[in-house]
């Protein structure tokens, strides 16, 4: 296969990759000009034809989502840019914002034209201070150059873009949690329906899209739907529900590799290729024991499953929850899966918003059970108990409002099916990787 020429990351190494002048010198804002010369619905049609699927985790087709907005709505219609990026193992949105802010702002403007929105809010996790400063400057440049504000590029199109900083809560990445948080409330995800496209921010029709999705929109408009479809994995025609995995994707590689990095590749690279060809191989001449395919919510691939294609279908076939964010985390063969799983469970126990009992109680009990195991006090029945708790929480069993619970359950399910022998051995050995704290002892 010839070397893939990056598109989304094409400019990030340039010395002035963040300036408007540099962006324009590279042909920036030509796609917006092209889009503004088209009717909004025609722009949506191109995005729909391209097969672009959301990059934020759920993989919903972007153009299709845009068509869910009510027709002839008097407005306002809002765009919320999801820049809360908090899924452990994921950092591509940060690179896009810090290194090429205008590529994102152009995508935002094109999307707003398509969905007839005049106001976009970019919900940025607080921790991304550098992204905030880079975007803030880029937005100012746009207002000065007539690329934001009134009569953009001499047309009748008006648009304001506002940055809104979060306050350190993972659940603000869930689209309705994000909306509640933007409205100034606790980030409690809403029961759906109504979906945001019908009733979202401030009760108005709202589209929520991820940063990378919107960056793709810029290139889909500039190069066309066919170009986008020439990259990636087409759908399996025997499966009517398969929507394909088109386009370039930013894969994040971290954990036990020699060269952790973010690379742009056509959708469908395998975990093994990512590790060996892009991550510099597993560190310390070790082997991979497990790989997180797309943020910890997606579960684990075992060492036997490294040839899984990381497109929208591959991880599912291997029993994972999905492709997720394509944040790949490599775990070497000297690491205990008991410790890794405990780390995942602690994350979700900390981040559950607490609205749904199965999630609030389930995440914290899974953490407590693993703490007990790691204190050398585990019992083999604990593994069945973990499976039972994990199996009873989430949208899939139908017991929770949002997908955080499914994401909390999945690493547990995968670890206990794919690595059960290791958990049993750990418990039988009576080893401990943490000390039994007094409150733990008192808990049973």
């Amino acid at each position: 296969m010839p070397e893939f020429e990056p598109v989304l990351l094409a400019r990030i190494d340039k010395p002035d990759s963040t300036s408007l002048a540099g962006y324009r010198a590279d042909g920036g804002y030509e796609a917006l000009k092209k889009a503004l010369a088209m009717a909004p619905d025609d722009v949506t049609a191109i995005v729909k034809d391209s097969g672009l699927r959301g990059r934020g985790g759920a993989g919903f087709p972007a153009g299709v989502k845009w068509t869910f907005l009510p027709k002839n709505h008097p407005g306002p219609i809002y765009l919320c840019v999801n820049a809360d990026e908090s899924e452990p193992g994921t950092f591509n949105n940060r690179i896009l914002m810090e290194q090429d802010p205008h590529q994102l702002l152009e995508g935002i403007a094109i999307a707003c034209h398509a969905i007839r929105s005049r106001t976009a809010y970019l919900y940025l996790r607080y921790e991304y201070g550098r992204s905030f400063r880079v975007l803030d400057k880029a937005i100012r440049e746009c207002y000065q150059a007539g690329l934001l504000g009134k009569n953009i590029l001499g047309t009748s199109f008006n648009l304001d873009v506002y940055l809104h900083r979060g306050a350190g809560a993972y659940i603000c990445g869930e689209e309705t949690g994000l909306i509640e948080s933007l409205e100034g409330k606790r980030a409690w995800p809403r029961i759906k329906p109504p979906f945001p496209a019908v009733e979202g921010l401030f009760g108005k029709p709202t589209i929520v899209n991820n940063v990378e999705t919107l960056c793709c929109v810029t290139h889909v408009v500039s190069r066309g739907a066919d170009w986008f479809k020439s990259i990636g994995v087409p759908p399996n025609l025997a499966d009517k529900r398969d929507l394909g995995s088109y386009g370039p994707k930013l894969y994040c590689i971290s954990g036990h590799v020699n060269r952790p990095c973010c690379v742009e590749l056509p959708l469908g690279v395998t975990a093994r290729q990512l590790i060996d060809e892009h991550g510099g191989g597993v560190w310390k001449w070790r082997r991979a024991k497990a790989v997180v395919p797309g943020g910890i919510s997606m579960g684990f691939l075992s060492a036997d499953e490294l040839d899984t294609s990381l497109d929208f279908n591959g991880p599912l076939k291997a029993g994972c929850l999905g492709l997720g964010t394509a944040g790949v985390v490599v775990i070497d063969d000297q690491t205990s899966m008991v410790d890794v799983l405990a780390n995942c469970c602690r994350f979700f126990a900390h981040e559950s918003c607490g609205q749904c009992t199965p999630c609030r109680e389930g995440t914290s009990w899974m953490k407590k059970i693993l703490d007990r195991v790691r204190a050398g006090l585990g019992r083999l029945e604990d593994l069945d108990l973990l499976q039972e708790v994990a199996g009873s929480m989430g949208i899939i069993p139908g017991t929770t409002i949002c997908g955080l619970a499914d994401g909390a359950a999945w690493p547990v399910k995968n670890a206990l099916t794919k690595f059960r022998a290791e958990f049993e051995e750990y418990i039988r050995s009576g080893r401990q990787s943490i000390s039994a704290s007094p409150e733990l002892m008192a808990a049973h």
Partner: protein
Amino acid sequence: MPVLNAELRARIQTELAKYPTKRAATLPALHIAHDALRSVPPAAIEEIAELLELHPAEVFDTMSFYGFFRDDKRPLGKHRVWVCRSISCMLRGGEDLLAQLSRRLGVAPGGTSADGKVTLEFAECLGACEGAPCLLLDDECHMNQTEQSAAAMIDKL
């Protein structure tokens, strides 16, 4: 004497223009107060509520949801250092780094050094996993940290 001075109030007022409801400026207002006062005392909650035409309980409700904000019983030091403890950092020594800094500063995560200079915190994934283990100093990320590099950075504060 109000706890929010004229400058802070003016900054909160500017935020209001961005949203169709005043309530939407709750997080921006809390950030402005919290950053300047190193906590959000009850008087600040009341003043924010007045500016946003909310009940103080509504502001407090939102504030209490986000573990990020401190009340005046646990004010922040001059700087805040967040050490990531999530998976990619944990695999490359993040938990050890947190323990080392904890010992060095003589505080548990959440605590503030005796000289009031640094509040140490654990963080969940900072979105900088390619530079694990990493930490956030206020809102700037520092990657590939060791106990020595982090200590040198803190000493310079």
